[in-house]
């Protein structure tokens, strides 16, 4: 077993620098690496490019980095829940590259799996395809999309072990598995760091080979964006 465990978020983020590109897992506020984000705010790492499906909300998730003006560029598919984001984008302070959600996921997976680029039908005939190579296969048009390149991937899992194996819970899985191994260094924070051997090898979502550092996360808020419920009759 190759030990990936580090003691805390500080050790886990060693080497992060201004100007780097980060991948961050999560969909909305679900499954975001809360500890890593807090530490990035604390370290005041600036001029960063963030690859993340969303940009958090004004006072949580990546919104915290936005408030602090640490982000130079966002690569996302949907950013509709964040006023500060809209303000910075419309004022030109923030560079934004909007990417279809499935393309975003696959650009991560391509980086993880050693594919340099891939053809997807998403975005053909739209702004998204402008300046990109397009091509017909079997009479249907596709857009060539390159794999992402990133320095760090920050992911959040439910359970993990020192070997770096990860298991995600429910829809907090989302982009997290696709980002593992898609950056030079993948940092996983977990709600529960269990003993090696405790996880069933058959149920592991991400094998430890895709993870360079893992640590036991703390104080998860797991904020809900849209609390929708029904009443018991």
């Amino acid at each position, binding site marked *: 077993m190759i030990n990936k465990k580090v003691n805390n978020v500080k050790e886990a983020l060693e080497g992060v620098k201004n100007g780097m590109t980060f991948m961050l897992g999560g969909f909305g506020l679900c499954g975001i690496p809360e500890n890593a984000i807090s530490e990035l705010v604390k370290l005041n790492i600036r001029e960063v490019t963030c690859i993340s499906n969303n940009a958090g909300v004004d006072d949580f998730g990546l919104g915290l980095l936005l408030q602090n003006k640490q982000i130079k560029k966002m690569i996302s598919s949907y950013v509709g829940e964040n006023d500060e984001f809209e303000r910075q984008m419309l004022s030109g302070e923030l560079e934004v590259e909007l990417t279809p959600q499935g393309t975003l996921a696959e650009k991560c997976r391509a980086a993880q799996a050693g594919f340099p680029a891939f053809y997807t039908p998403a975005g053909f005939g739209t702004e998204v395809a402008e300046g990109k190579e397009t091509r017909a296969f079997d009479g249907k048009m596709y857009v060539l999309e390159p794999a992402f390149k990133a320095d760090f991937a920050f992911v959040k899992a439910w359970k993990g072990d020192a070997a770096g194996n990860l298991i995600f819970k*429910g829809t907090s899985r989302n982009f997290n598995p696709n980002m593992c191994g898609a950056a030079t260094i993948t940092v996983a924070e977990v709600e529960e760091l269990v003993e090696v051997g405790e996880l069933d090898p058959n149920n592991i979502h991400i094998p430890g080979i895709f993870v360079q550092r893992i640590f036991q996360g703390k104080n998860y808020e797991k904020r809900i964006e849209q609390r929708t419920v*029904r009443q018991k009759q």
Partner: protein
Amino acid sequence: MALDKIGIAKRIAQEVQNGFYVNLGIGIPTLVANYVANDLEVEFQSENGVLGMGPFPFDGEEDADIINAGKQTITTMPGASFFDSSMSFAMIRGKHVDLTILGAMEVSENGDIANWKIPGKMVKGMGGAMDLVASAENIIVAMMHTNKAGESKILKRCSLPLTGVGCVTKVVTNLAVLEVKNNAFHLLERAPGVSVEEIKNATEGTLVVHGEIPEMNI
């Protein structure tokens, strides 16, 4: 009487067939799940990574880790599964999802759709919509026939940045059910009490009216 949002959702629910996997967009489409006939075998997919979505949880039973693409807390039905984003879009891009229902700001007579950006005013992003419309073969748009100023959103050509080209198969609005084919909107049904004339006036794109047009049955 023009339909309200619930009326549109009810009418679209009639398009859901037995054995369909269905992806519902945010807004009116989300409501469709409430009106699908109980005796149909149907599963709802949400592109953030769940198949077999159920109703909202009971108060106090919400789980922050179980949400839909609208970021709403949900439950799952027996037989449900969770998966990552890459696999979720494998379902969509691979044409395993049978029906996609989504909202739009504009549609055009050749099946183009625009729903993600108003230049200089609003850019929320396309989310999964571009993937959905680029791959799905059965795309129903739920929308209002006109904007608040009364201008048609059923157009010859979309004026807003496109989400997808030549992809919309059907449009259900507050006024009508329209099939999109051969570069025209074909009027299939009228909202109860709405005349063909009213629909014509509210439609900027080419409208084909063939024979007697029945009222929706909802």
